[in-house]
């Protein structure tokens, strides 16, 4: 892991991190059931945009990917695929129990147990599912982490690409997505 307390960013990177922190676009991808608390977070009641966050339609534009709960292997392939499409710096926030140790589906044949084996996670939120307040707080935390230059999961992914790939292949057999589904 990158040493977190050591702040060896230069001025440009610090300014860059300031902008990154205050304008986080999340990817519009509801991977699991935690996504049901995202509409309230995004919309008027909790108004995520106050933090400068907003949903973005495509992975290319997004800064943060929210893994909202369990991931079936089928989804994980897409998640990895679109995570790699995202532009650096990029962050992952994992929601709820399922991403940490499998959650309710710990013995399921279709869902993974530990997310951080496959993609680097910057922040976990406890709860099943986390309330919008918890989600908002997580975003605030993420912002301060980015400001301090501590959200370096993407760098970790680059540096340990082999390790991540191996884990991905171990669990998924293939990471490539097949779309010849019906015909």
């Amino acid at each position, binding site marked *: 892991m990158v040493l977190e307390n050591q702040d060896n960013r230069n001025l440009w990177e610090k300014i860059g991190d300031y902008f990154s922190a205050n304008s986080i676009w999340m990817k519009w991808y509801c991977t699991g059931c935690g996504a049901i608390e995202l509409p309230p977070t995004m919309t008027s*009641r909790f108004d995520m945009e106050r933090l400068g966050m907003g949903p973005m339609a495509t992975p290319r534009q997004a800064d943060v990917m929210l893994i909202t709960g369990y991931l*079936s292997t089928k*989804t994980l392939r897409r998640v990895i695929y679109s995570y790699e499409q995202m532009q650096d710096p990029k962050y992952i926030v994992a929601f709820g129990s399922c991403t940490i140790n499998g959650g*309710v*589906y710990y013995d*399921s044949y279709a869902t993974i147990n530990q997310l951080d084996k496959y993609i680097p996670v910057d922040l976990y939120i406890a709860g099943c599912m986390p309330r919008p307040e918890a989600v908002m707080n997580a975003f605030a935390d993420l912002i301060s982490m980015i400001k301090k230059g501590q959200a370096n999961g993407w760098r970790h992914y680059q540096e340990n690409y082999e390790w991540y790939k191996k884990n991905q292949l171990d669990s998924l057999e293939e990471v490539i997505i097949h779309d010849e589904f019906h015909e």
Partner: protein
Amino acid sequence: MKEVKLFLGPQHPGMHGNYSVQMYVDGDIVKKARPTPGFLHRGFEKLMERRLWMGNLALIPRICVVEPDINEMVYAQGIEMLAKVEIPEKAHWIRMMILEMARLAIHIMGLGGIGGPTGLYTLTYWAIAQRDLILDLFEEITGARVYHMYIVPGGVRKQLPDGILEKLSELLDELEVKIPEYRELGLKHPIIHKRLKDNIMLPEDVVWEVGITGIGMRSATNKEYDLRKVQPYARYDQVEFDVPVANYSDALTRVNIKYKEIFQSIRILRQVIEKMPKEGEVRTKISTGSALRWKVPAGMVYSAIESSRGEYGYFIVSDGKEMPYRIAVRGASYPQGLLGIEKYLVDCRIDDASLWMDTMGVCSPEIDR
């Protein structure tokens, strides 16, 4: 022109939930569409065979994320049918209240949901914030916003907190004022009319062919095919309500029916508040002993109720042990989400694809399980 293959989802803003439709388009017209479910497959049916009858309570709400309560109800009802348990009168009324609140919540969200594909985001923002007030009420009754785990086999989990009926009544007053604003903004909007009217049709024979239930079915057949009327469960036979129907099913009709059902739910809730027994037990045990060792007599039963999207059923097989032998889930959106897409998304425009999902009510987690 060559057909282009497009993926509507799983990572697509027009797709609600983690679901995918592969579309082969010619220009803007969909020539062929194939649903791709399974992104949310967790193997519920297998996992439920490995949990205690009571332990499954933690699992079942998660089958359908947007409307968890129907799962609890249908599971509890099935077990009660197997165990031949009569639950207390008050529990029936509380269940009905929870179910109607849930229906209210999902219908409001669905009403706002048409704002997404059509671009009327203001409506979405309003509606979801409004729904949150219902979730607050849920939190007070059940202890959680989304996964309530409140309707349990044998009744409901706890007594209602004090003063909750008054709060509900106030909320209903507020909704009766606020919901018509959605009509002003949305349903009366000329452009919404343009986009929804005579569009995304659902003919009656298709309903029977595919097996679509719920609003889709009622909007096409002009019959009150609502399990609440046809096979009343809980105490739906003791409250008055109408089932809005139509004989011409375009997207606008379906949205309008949804709008009207909101007011029917409010009407039911008002009657529940009035007629609910003030005193009384709310739970009986389905079996003797501690929950670790509750047994359900052997047998099989199909328990079904009316969800916001149609007939929602569990087929439960028990072999008399502490765990279910087999549970099969009939997600209400199974027909419209799979065969419905394959057959009837054809010749729609790309623009309408996500509206189709919206107005038909396709809930991906219950298809995938």
